[in-house]
């Protein structure tokens, strides 16, 4: 079932990709990669420092003041989601069958759900006018999970190259396809 979706995705992306032509021009790929790394730095520099603040670093800075950096961290995430999608739409089989990409996606999801949990559970306690400079323990756990998730995303991203999917040659993966079945060539 999931295998069929993966194969369908890869073949459809290859058949209809709007950016593959652009991405295969000279230097496009390295330029988008550089932008992806810059987004990474923005995300860690703004969201990571906010997490460190929740965990007790720079204790005298009000949390609400520090939070003003977060939109720039989100900008980093948006830059990376967009540039990441450009890689995916150019070489879909290199990602959709890559176990490192599956884990990267998992950690991005954890990071996102974790951030949502922060705003749903701790927003009032952390941001109210009389909020303590020391956040509740729940917020600290969320900050630790956030740091761990984003660092894991970096690790998985860097590992992509080393887990490039090999041709399937008959073996069957378990949950997700982790090898590359032959591509359906367009018959146009």
């Amino acid at each position, binding site marked *: 079932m999931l295998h069929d979706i993966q194969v369908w995705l890869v073949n459809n992306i290859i058949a209809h990709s709007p950016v593959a032509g652009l991405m295969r021009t000279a*230097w496009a*790929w*390295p*330029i988008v*990669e*550089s932008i992806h*790394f*810059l987004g*990474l*730095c*923005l*995300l*860690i*520099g*703004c969201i*990571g*420092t906010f997490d*460190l603040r929740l965990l007790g*670093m*720079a*204790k*005298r*800075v*009000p949390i*609400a*003041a*520090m*939070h*003003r*950096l977060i939109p*720039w961290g989100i900008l980093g995430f948006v830059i990376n989601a967009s540039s990441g999608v450009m890689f995916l739409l150019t070489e879909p089989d290199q990602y959709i069958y890559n176990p490192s990409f599956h884990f990267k996606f998992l950690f991005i999801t954890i990071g996102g759900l974790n951030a949502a949990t922060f705003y749903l559970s701790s927003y009032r306690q952390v941001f109210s006018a009389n909020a303590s400079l020391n956040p509740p323990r729940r917020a600290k756990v969320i900050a630790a999970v956030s740091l761990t998730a*984003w*660092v894991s995303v*970096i*690790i998985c*991203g*860097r*590992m992509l*190259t*080393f887990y490039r999917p090999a041709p399937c040659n008959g073996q069957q993966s378990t949950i997700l396809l982790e090898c590359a079945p032959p591509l359906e060539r367009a018959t146009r």
Partner: protein
Amino acid sequence: MNIDPFLIWLESTALSQWVVGSESMFAFPGILAIHAIGMGFAVGICLALDLRILGVAPDVQIAQMRKFIPVVWVAFWVNAISGVLLLIGYPTKALTNPVFYLKLLLIAAGLVLFRRIGRRVFDEAAGDARADSPVVQRLAIVSLVCWVGAITAGRFLAYTYHRLTALG
């Protein structure tokens, strides 16, 4: 100056061959991952400081951001060490490529700017006012440019080298 004998020797050392040839995920892939994490924290915090100087998060007392300096330096040294290991793995690839020297230059400039900016703004009483001065604003912009350049140069190393190994 022909540095090939040195490169050939370096590539023949056990450490170089471990970095490049080991099956272990702690060798080349692990070192690369650590290098990327270090970049995220070192460059990321420098970017956050530059953004603060340029007007983002104005309620953060800028002198308080000095509490993050140790993170920048730990991350920098993690990257200096992981970078040297990557260099020992592929010395010819880096040392015969001008882009590598450009990357080092931009990192050096970024660090000098970080210290200069810090000397001016990490002051409890006067930091916030000094951050608004045109000099510091300019330093912050140049700092942003240096870090964007260093990241781009680093990424382009994978695409601009002329020789992978001394004997290859």
